[in-house]
């Protein structure tokens, strides 16, 4: 493209224009450009970098591996820096960074990615609580409050497939609203709901398996454990 094409017929400054003393106007123009770049850098440092712990925790939740999380975090901030000009001032930088984080994570897992289409959130919600009902009849719901589930949940989360994991991590661990998760994941809210509910149901099933294996089961009351097999 001809340089003149870029600025309404006006010649665009060449890289050396700023040192051309014959055209005094260009020198301050380049200085202003450098100043703008520096201001952008300062804004990036002030508005994006403070979220490195949040990004790290989110990456760790997704990858469940410290080395993989490190790679995702580094790539996230690199991409964020390179596309900082697209960030809308005043919007939620944490949410924006989470979007990039998940994209970086998915790219790194592309070969393992599984595509699951689930749109009916109501059915997922219902089936989830129906499962809970059945477990409740065995008294298994009380198990949730009797034992320390955190280790089992971390393991279950580790095993949870995408796209369910991202939805659960964002809403249940990172306390994002459905709307925010929808924006981060780039899917409609209904899809967030269905992924979230399905993910929770899978986690519940894994927890009940864990509870049975740990001897907390009430299977002697009906041997309902076979329903999850």
């Amino acid at each position, binding site marked *: 493209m001809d340089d003149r094409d870029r600025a309404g017929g006006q010649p665009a400054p060449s890289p050396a224009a700023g040192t051309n003393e014959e055209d005094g106007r260009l020198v301050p123009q380049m200085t202003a450009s450098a100043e703008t770049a520096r201001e952008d850098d300062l804004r990036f440092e002030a508005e994006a970098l403070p979220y490195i712990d949040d990004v*790290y925790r989110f990456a*760790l939740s997704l990858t469940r591996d410290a080395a993989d999380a*490190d790679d995702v975090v580094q790539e996230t901030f690199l991409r964020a820096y390179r596309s900082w000009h697209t960030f809308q001032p005043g919007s939620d930088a944490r949410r924006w960074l989470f979007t990039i984080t998940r994209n970086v994570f998915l790219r790194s897992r592309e070969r393992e990615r599984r595509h699951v289409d689930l749109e009916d959130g109501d059915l997922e919600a219902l089936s989830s609580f129906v499962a809970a009902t059945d477990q409740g009849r065995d008294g298994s*719901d009380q198990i949730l409050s009797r034992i320390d589930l955190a280790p089992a949940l971390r393991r279950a989360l580790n095993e949870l497939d995408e796209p369910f994991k991202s939805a659960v991590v964002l809403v249940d661990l990172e306390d994002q609203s459905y709307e925010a998760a929808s924006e981060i994941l780039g899917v409609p809210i209904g899809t967030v709901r269905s992924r979230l509910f399905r993910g929770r149901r899978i986690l519940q099933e894994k*927890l009940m398996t864990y509870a049975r294996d740990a001897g907390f089961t009430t299977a002697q009351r009906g041997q309902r454990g076979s329903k999850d097999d």
Partner: protein
Amino acid sequence: MTECKRDIDCRGAVQKLWDYLDHELTPERMDEVRRHLERCGNCLPHHEYGRVFLAALASARQADARAPDALRRRVMDSLRAAGLST
């Protein structure tokens, strides 16, 4: 699924339970579910189960997880290599 002979439909209430627990319903819907739970002994255990489950899930959040210093340095190094001037 259990049935309830109350004037509010149990199926509808259970369908909305996750949204209710996540505070994602409109205020009117929140009230509707809350009133149902107050009156329906069959649905209340579902609510309690979901509440306890979500609390346990939230506890799995590694709130104290901080980016290691080595990672911070690595990120800053890569950003400076990409042009960060500060």
